[in-house]
């Protein structure tokens, strides 16, 4: 498990997005609706999804745990796996850094399939924790 793993959210096609674990160079595809629903629910079950999608040799890619809690990222059935060339990562435009912080994104990935948002897994964990905290009326 690598807490520094990254998740990339791509929009190569309308209504469909890629999810990538950048540090492990694995990409998943999921529908945007699923991402939003899961984000709102603060339940991000990526590990379960990768477990179903990845060959056993790639199980090391299941690296989404934060310093204080695990991140569970749920995506649904539309999943594919591909390599992410890290040289294709670029910073999110400075104009959008404020928006990016709201969904744990500071970088984008640009490759032959288009452009995608790169999400930081550690930041996702913290966002999830904050959402749980808020949903409990501010109680930790």
């Amino acid at each position: 498990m690598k807490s520094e793993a990254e998740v990339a959210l791509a929009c190569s096609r309308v209504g469909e997005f890629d999810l990538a674990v950048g540090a492990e160079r694995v990409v998943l595809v999921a529908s945007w609706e699923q991402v939003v629903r899961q984000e709102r629910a603060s339940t991000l079950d990526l590990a379960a999804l990768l477990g179903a999608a990845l060959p056993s040799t790639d199980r090391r890619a299941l690296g989404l745990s934060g310093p204080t809690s695990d991140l569970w990222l749920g995506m649904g059935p539309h999943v594919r796996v591909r390599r992410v060339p890290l040289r294709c990562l670029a910073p999110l435009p400075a104009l959008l850094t404020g928006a990016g912080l709201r969904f744990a994104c500071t970088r984008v990935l640009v490759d032959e399939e288009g452009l995608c948002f790169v999400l930081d897994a550690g930041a996702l964990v913290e966002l999830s924790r904050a959402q749980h905290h808020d949903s409990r009326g501010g109680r930790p």
Partner: protein
Amino acid sequence: MPSFPTCAPPQPPHPRPDPTAARHLLACRVGETSLAFPAEQVEEILEDRPAARVPHAPEHIGGIVSWGEGSLAVVDLARFLHLGAPSSPGDDTQARARIVVVTAGGLQAGLRCAKVLGIVDASRVLQVRPDTLQGERLAPFLRSEVSGPDGAIGVLDVAALLESLRVRS
């Protein structure tokens, strides 16, 4: 107690040329208004293209597109400045729509314009304080005005504009 003569600072005549004004301007149509950017702050002019939507971004952020080896935030300038219907992919005017890439104050953006009107040689026209162009949202970003063939062209303060466009967390 000695009294000192008061000396009010001389008031500049109106209109007056701005000695710091840009020499060349890129004039564009934004909604129903003509606006211009100092040419030295224009990086590139791109054909308009669909942009990926950015979650949690305000409506005037048209999205993000790949540009060079990185990405570029695209702004619907007409929507941000309340200047009439924004151009968007699929409009009849799409063929003329452009994304003007500007840089100022360490920020960069692609400003979606309905049409590029051309280069204005600012040394041949008088730049005056904004007077003709109106608009509550537009006024804070107007540096000056120049006369164009179809009326006044507002010269934008690109640095102030980009700073205002920055999405806060």
